[in-house]
């Protein structure tokens, strides 16, 4: 049907790909397809109820947060906390997932991927293109997936080193601090601009930049002008509170997202090896190119279930609340096929990511910290399991 599904796969029939034969990869694809269909058929009232419950909680936190700023001094910390929770829920469990089309089946315009927008700088329309299409289709394909290093970091040894990358840890820190601005500007494709392939604000970037300006204007007006002004003499206190809430959200989402694809052991891929990929191979790439975070139920909710990054990448359009139950089966499938299933607690995954950021600020880096790369890179250990 499409080139991704139908055409013959790249490796020859007798060649193994990540330790699996062709037939095994097809079988893997069929098993994951079956799991997908089973969950799709089961979607219904509990899923809709869950989403409405989360939205209700988010709106309540938001209203409480905005209101608590009227309480001088003692209200400030609870206000910032409530607003931070509101923004995190809005961006992760609601926004990211709704804009993936996970709840389009409900037929409710307020939860439709084409109509939803989130409480952050990035306009929905720009983000959906870069994320749902580019990142989810070409996951971890160096040179195609623009989320590998976001155009400003060196997150893969295949990215050619230059002295700019000595600042890798600093750039990462700045990206974390200003994450919502970074995500919004990401869609201007700065690396294309610097390569001279498109103008920064003109040409094909013109409509993208227009949407970014408009959305940024609205967000700034709301958080840094109107709500502070409504608290009258507490203007500066509210302004600072809103800024801190946005910062808390930035730091949290940056960390969750960086744990999704950058911990050690996560594979990256070349453009050549993913040409004419079969559906099974696509599934395989999503599994090898993502990592999960283990933790409490609260952590999963606050991460929008992106702590189940592997399941999210296999089934991006299935409501995220289903990922925990699907993870049990995906992990079992991985074990049977001798495939790695990258998971770990938040601190372990974070440490691994930061070690990589630091290591790759220097030349090389394809040794110990390097991701698994291609069929040769599959170790005997991972096959023996």
């Amino acid at each position, binding site marked *: *049907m*499409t*080139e*991704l*599904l139908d055409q013959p796969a790249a490796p020859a029939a007798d060649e193994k790909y990540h330790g699996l034969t062709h037939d095994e990869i097809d079988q893997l694809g069929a098993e994951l*397809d079956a799991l997908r*269909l089973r969950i*799709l058929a089961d979607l*219904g*009232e509990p*899923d*809709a*109820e869950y989403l409405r419950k989360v*939205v*209700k909680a988010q*709106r*309540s936190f938001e*209203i409480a947060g905005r209101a608590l700023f009227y309480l001088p001094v003692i209200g400030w910390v609870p206000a910032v906390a409530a607003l931070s929770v509101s923004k995190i829920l809005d961006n992760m469990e609601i926004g990211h997932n709704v804009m*993936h*089309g996970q709840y*389009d*089946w*409900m*037929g*409710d315009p*307020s939860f*439709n*991927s*084409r109509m939803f*927008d*989130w*409480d952050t700088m990035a306009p929905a329309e720009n983000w*959906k*293109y870069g994320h*749902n*299409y580019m990142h*989810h*289709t070409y996951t971890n394909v160096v040179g195609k997936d623009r989320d590998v290093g976001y155009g400003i970091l060196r997150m893969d040894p295949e990215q050619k080193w230059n002295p700019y990358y000595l600042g890798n840890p600093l750039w990462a820190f700045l990206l974390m601090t200003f994450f919502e601005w970074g995500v919004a500007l990401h869609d201007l494709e700065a690396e294309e601009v610097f390569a001279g392939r498109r103008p920064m604000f003109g040409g094909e970037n013109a409509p993208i930049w227009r949407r970014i300006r408009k*959305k940024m204007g*609205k*967000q700034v*007006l*709301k958080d840094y002008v*109107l*709500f502070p002004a*409504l608290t009258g003499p507490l203007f500066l206190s509210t302004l600072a509170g809103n800024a801190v809430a946005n910062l808390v959200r930035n730091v949290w989402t940056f960390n969750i997202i960086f744990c999704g694809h950058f911990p050690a052991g996560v594979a990256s891929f070349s453009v050549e090896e993913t040409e004419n990929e079969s*559906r099974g191979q*696509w599934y395989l790439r999503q599994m090898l190119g993502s990592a999960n975070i283990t933790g409490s139920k609260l952590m999963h909710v606050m991460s929008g279930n992106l702590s189940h990054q592997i399941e999210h990448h296999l089934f*991006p*359009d299935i409501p995220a609340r289903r990922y925990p139950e699907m993870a049990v089966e995906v992990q079992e499938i991985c074990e049977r096929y001798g495939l790695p299933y990258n998971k770990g607690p938040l601190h372990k995954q974070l440490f691994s990511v930061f070690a990589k950021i630091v290591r790759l600020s220097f030349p090389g880096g394809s040794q110990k910290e390097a991701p698994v790369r291609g069929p040769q890179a599959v170790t005997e250990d991972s096959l023996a399991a």
Partner: protein
Amino acid sequence: MSALISDPAAVPTRPSPARTGGLLGPLLRSKLVTALASPHGVDTYLERFNPMWAAHEVRARIVSVHRETDGDAPVATLTLQPTSTWRGHRAGQHVLVGVEIPGIAKRFTRAFSISSAASGRGERFTLTIRAHDEGQVSSYLVRQAQAGQILHLSQAQGEFTLVESPATPTISRLVFITGGSGITPAMSMVRTLLRDGYDGHAGRKVTFLHFARSAEDQIFATELAEIAAADNGVDVHLRHGDQVFSEFELRRLVPDYKETDTWLCGPPGLVELVKTAYGDSTRLRMEFFKPAVARAAVSTGSTTDAPVIEGDISFTRSGKTAAASGASLLEQAEELGLKPEFGCRMGICFSCTRTKTAGTVRNILTGEESAVPDEEVRICVTAAAGDCHIDL
């Protein structure tokens, strides 16, 4: 039935915040509040407190459900209290009603004609609906809906309305020809004429010719009998069972019918007969409810294993058509030279989502077929499984 004759709009409506004092509504719709509620919109916050509070969206609470007829395809009249955002309706208009069907948690949206007399801002109105076998929404509203439930509405829409307003009446004669549940928009017009006319009179001569399957199946029977008996200028002619429309009969009732403003609403058979009778007359106005039902997939007994798909895809916006080939709608559109937006081409990114307005399609990934009208489909993983209309 007498409750229906009394003007539903006369029932006092409960004020909601957007009306109170006449100040809150404009405030909630102000630029300031819109900016504060960005990007989600003020309604999503108001809704938390009371589903009947709205600044932009239109919702309604079901006030009562009144069963009009029983049988295989029962009819019920729903009295609705809309939010203050409802701008009212002109007689003959319809409204899109969104319903969340319990159990499957999906919202379906269908158009229904308004049966009560013209309404003003925030005023109550009624829908009279027949439960069709294939109609999930109509069936639910007639058989299961209960007072207190909330429905999602559009504003009233449609141009199948009386030409002039009560403020600029004419005395020219009117003819209504309706069949089955097609009576509803005409009923709204007759009720409006009787309400706004002079001293219980419609203000002009009205001929109301209606066809129903049987006397038991006749909607508004009591009220129609009362209208027929009263001195009001309205002639009511009810035809049941085998009595089909005939040009001869119409000519006998209204000799110059071709020069008389006529409103026609009913099933396709009736519409065809009446259209033929009116020929090229410009006085005939029509309203269709159900779009022509598309053929479902037909697997003819072919020698190959794959079922042969018979059907035509019509890309309604561009006006292009193609025979269903089994390829994805995206590929078929591209073959016709159309350039719809797309992304992953494997069903994950939702870039290519389009509305299928009617017809049957098959999801290539799941094999699932669907004949639901006005359904959003990802055209890269959807193929035609019969005739279908795509908004492209």
